[in-house]
């Protein structure tokens, strides 16, 4: 390995952070730069829709790396700097302020940004998205008892925030285009149970509707839905999904129609340029097809794998790279309830219900393929069941052919 080589990691989310850690632990001893578009130390996102909304003291805890950690790793961290362009021919990343970052290798981890609603009134004060620390700080300051909150989109982030807000004494309504939350993802049986839990937590749910407009003078006061019904609200949290943050890569060979395209080693179409995290669609040999996964565990595992593979390539040992195979996994905590999902749900499969004998709040739904093999599982308040399913699915799907 040539210690004069330079690697630049773009994006200082959890994928970017694991990428620099993995570069070092796989033996890269050259120059390493981490470029983060947000100011401040790298931080973790999952708590932003959970404890962080309740308790400010969690803030210190969500930091992914301290300045000392960065020093120990020998990483130059450029915070609050956005990369604007990738020049593949010159092998240079151009950042704002005219900064030129030449590289031998790069790992692109730009993550995703919230999808925006395009209906009238989104500019009103009180209409919010939740992705960054700043977003979470702003939302927390608006969560006072007695307020009326509407959550647009019944995804995990929205539902987590809704349950927390209801617990704080807000009057909360979730509006979703689906009849029940998580119906497309998990099937009707699971969605029905999760909806009951949501209602028990004191959250109202309006399904099969979308927002037609937000209204108010300068502050939000009313939300009108597409059936003409109106809901009074002074806070709206919009959580309708995220899209890869890749506009800055437009015109380069690394893009697909859905984020950055990478092969089974997480390498893009450009030599020495790898990708990981929410923005990366790679060839997942575990399923034999391209996948893009927007979950924490994939971000860290993929970044670790991509950086190790880049280290091999830079050392002239591309043949010893390892394909990154993954079984999707995520958790979500909704108040006191822990939801875990592993694997995939075959289209149309409603799954089989399992209940714990010890505890009625524990249940699981397992999804099987046509041959009867376990391919996915949802576990609620039942980590031991989730881990068993995860081991089972991984042992079958991840073993190399």
């Amino acid at each position: 390995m040539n210690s004069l080589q330079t690697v630049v990691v773009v994006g200082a989310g959890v994928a970017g952070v694991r990428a620099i850690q993995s570069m070092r632990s796989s033996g890269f001893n050259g120059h390493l730069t981490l470029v983060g578009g947000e100011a401040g130390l790298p931080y973790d996102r999952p708590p932003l829709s959970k404890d962080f909304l309740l308790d400010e003291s969690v803030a210190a805890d969500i930091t992914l790396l301290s300045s000392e950690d960065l020093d120990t790793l020998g990483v130059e961290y450029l915070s609050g700097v956005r990369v604007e362009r990738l020049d593949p021919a010159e092998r240079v990343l151009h950042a704002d302020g005219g900064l030129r970052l030449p590289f031998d290798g790069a790992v692109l981890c730009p993550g995703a940004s919230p999808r925006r609603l395009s209906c009238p009134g989104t500019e009103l004060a009180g209409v919010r998205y939740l992705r960054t620390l700043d977003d979470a700080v702003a939302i927390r300051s608006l969560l006072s008892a007695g307020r009326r909150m509407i959550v647009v989109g019944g995804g995990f982030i929205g539902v987590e925030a809704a349950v927390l807000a209801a617990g704080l004494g807000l009057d909360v309504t979730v509006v979703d285009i689906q009849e029940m939350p998580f119906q497309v993802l998990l099937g009707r049986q699971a969605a029905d149970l999760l909806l009951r839990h949501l209602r028990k937590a004191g959250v109202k749910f309006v399904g099969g509707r979308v927002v037609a407009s937000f209204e108010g003078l300068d502050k939000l006061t009313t939300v009108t839905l597409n059936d003409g019904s109106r809901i009074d609200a002074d806070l709206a949290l919009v959580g309708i999904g995220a899209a890869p943050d890749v506009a800055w890569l437009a015109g380069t060979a690394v893009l697909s129609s859905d984020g950055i395209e990478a092969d089974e080693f997480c390498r893009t179409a450009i030599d020495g340029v790898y990708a990981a995290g929410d923005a990366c669609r790679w060839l997942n040999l575990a399923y034999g097809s391209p996948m893009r996964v927007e979950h924490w565990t994939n971000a860290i595992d993929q970044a670790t794998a991509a950086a190790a593979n880049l280290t091999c390539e830079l050392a002239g040992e591309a043949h010893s790279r390892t394909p990154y195979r993954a079984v999707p996994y995520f958790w979500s905590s909704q108040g006191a309830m822990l939801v875990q999902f592993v694997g995939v749900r075959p289209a149309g499969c409603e799954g089989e219900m399992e209940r714990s004998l010890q505890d009625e709040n524990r249940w699981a739904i397992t999804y099987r393929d046509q041959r009867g093999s376990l391919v996915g599982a949802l576990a609620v308040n039942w980590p031991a069941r989730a881990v068993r399913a995860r081991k089972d699915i991984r042992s079958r799907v991840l073993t190399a052919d």
Partner: protein
Amino acid sequence: MIRIVVDRTRCFGYGNCVAALSEVFDLNDEDGVVLVDEEAAQTVAERQLDAAVRSCPTNALRINRT
């Protein structure tokens, strides 16, 4: 000697450590909190152990090398 220190109040049974290194980590059936096989921890590669510890979403795990 390698010791794995678990902060039980921070472990929520996410199971990432188990997925990363099932030789060393498992979950307790009852409360879903992590179990560590200290003996196995001595024999696995340092890099694997580091990666498993870093896979914990809540930093519930720490390695003490003495």
